[in-house]
């Protein structure tokens, strides 16, 4: 049952990406280009999503456990550290270069665009490199 929920959640998420055109990297870059022809769409997408999560998460997290599992799996860390900041800077540079964060890049796989395929492959390599880096410096 948890697997069905996960499948549906992934489906709803990327239908949202398609509806809002955030699956189009040029729309994302249009938002990031504040000194050019600014495209505000991404602000409404993130805003719309956050209004929903702010309302629902507050109620959901009052429960002792989720409907189909014994516990909530929430991030353990609460304080700021250099990995958080350095990671965000590197991610931001990559995002600004290409216009894709992980969600839309993976969602667009089915279009079989060779350039996006190479991006996703590089993203996977980057993920594994970070895992190796963190394990060395832990």
């Amino acid at each position, binding site marked *: 049952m948890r697997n*069905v*929920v*996960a499948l549906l*959640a*992934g*489906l*709803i998420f*990327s*239908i*949202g*990406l*398609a509806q809002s055109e955030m699956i*189009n990297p040029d729309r994302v870059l249009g938002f990031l*280009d504040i000194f050019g022809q*600014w495209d*505000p*769409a991404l602000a409404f*997408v993130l805003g*719309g*999503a*956050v209004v*929903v*999560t702010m309302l629902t*998460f507050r109620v959901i*997290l009052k429960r002792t*456990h*989720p409907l189909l599992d014994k516990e909530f799996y*929430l991030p353990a*860390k*609460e*304080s700021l550290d250099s990995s*958080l*900041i350095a*990671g965000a*800077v*590197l*991610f*931001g540079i*990559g*995002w*600004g*270069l290409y216009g894709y964060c*992980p*969600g839309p*890049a*993976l*969602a667009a796989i*089915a279009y079989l665009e060779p*350039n996006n395929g*190479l*991006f996703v492959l*590089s*993203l*996977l*390599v980057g*993920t594994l490199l*970070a*895992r190796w*880096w*963190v394990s060395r410096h832990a």
Partner: protein
Amino acid sequence: MLSFDVVLPALLGGVLIGLSASVLLLFNGRIMGVCGILNQAINFKGGSNLWAWLFLLGLVAGPLASDAFLGTSQPVFEERTLLVTIVAGLLVGFGTSLGSGCTSGHGVCGIGRLSQRSIVSVLVFMLAAMVTVFVFRHMWGA
């Protein structure tokens, strides 16, 4: 600039994304962060991560379903050079893993639960991305 044509699909899409995050947390107790879920899917240490693969399957199928039944269409995007594609992909993969989250994890879910780490992360990666676009579009004029 701010017409209904721009605002409505963006808000609708955003609400769907927020609902999806709510469903995953309410039923499964999981944070809907794509890079976190990707990390669990390619975790070779074992453990039950079938749900992560199914989330990714849904993620890949969604745009096709939307194009077939909901009137959206495949985006046409400008080709990037091989160098830009590879460097950007490496940075996005490395950065989101090191920084424990991306736009969905820190942005949609983290801000939703008012996590200090997530709010700082979103501000930092947005600023870094805007500076990058500024440098490449307006300084190098590429």
